[in-house]
């Protein structure tokens, strides 16, 4: 289950990554395995041809893997780096569905970004973490948590 952060943490607690494109291109790309294939197919409708190449969804041409969408990169960042928090402001609804279904990972946004298909998440607040298991309850927490 993922953990949701509404407030920025001090860098000593956990690193927040805002620039998901850059972090993916520089670090996450070297961690990819077969789990990435399904996520790239699901979000970008592209096939991962090798660790560093995909096929274009539009014309089938082989492209460097840096051409996957920012949202797809964010989902992969969250999956492969459970020790960091990733800003999800650039994620489309299709990416949120994937991220909320991940077994672990950490996301940050200062306004509600929720998948309709969410099951349960942990939320991080001043008193620690707690579990929330409904869309409406999570939305309410996100809007009112100070």
């Amino acid at each position: 289950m993922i953990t949701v952060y509404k407030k920025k943490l001090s860098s000593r607690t956990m690193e927040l990554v805002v620039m998901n494109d850059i972090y993916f291109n520089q670090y996450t790309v070297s961690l990819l395995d077969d789990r990435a294939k399904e996520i790239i197919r699901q979000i970008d409708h592209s096939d991962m041809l090798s660790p560093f190449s995909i096929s274009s969804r539009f014309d089938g041409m082989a492209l460097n893997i840096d051409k996957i969408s920012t949202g797809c990169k964010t989902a992969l960042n969250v999956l492969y780096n459970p020790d960091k928090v990733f800003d999800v402001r650039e994620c489309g609804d299709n990416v949120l569905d994937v991220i909320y279904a991940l077994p672990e990972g950490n996301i940050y946004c200062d306004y509600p970004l929720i998948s309709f298909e969410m099951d349960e998440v942990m939320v991080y607040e001043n008193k620690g973490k707690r579990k929330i298991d409904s869309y409406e309850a999570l939305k309410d927490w996100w809007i009112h948590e100070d």
Partner: protein
Amino acid sequence: MKIKPVVLDRIQTMHTSYKVDFILEANVTLIVGDSGTGKSTVFSFLQELAAENRTIKCYNYLDKKTGYKSAIKRANGKLFIIDNADILLDDAMRWYIATDGKNQYILIGRNPTGLMLNQEDIMELSSEKHNGITKFTLKYSMSSYNIIDYVEAGNEAQS
């Protein structure tokens, strides 16, 4: 707040087997939609167009540390195309863009908060392939649930 485009009401370009044809109906157009639909791909084609059209200026996450905000505020008669807008635009820049009558904007992002947009100013990409050419156009967004959430959250925060 609906303002007619002050610079261009249509933007067209070609890039190998890709064609872009955007009809622009408002001075600020927000392009939203699922990840992986080609928004940043289209942005790269428009960057290429901007290289030979001085009216168009493009910014994305690579410009985060550059002076894009002051460049926008100094500009007159430009069409700014901004990818990664949710990262690049803070509240003050959103207010500036919403009230700027001298320049025009195409924003690629998801968060309409502070831009004073009508629902019909929020668009999505549409792509169709014909004779080997993939053509990108704009269509009205079907108002994803998360956009409604942004607006509700923004309204509550401001009240």
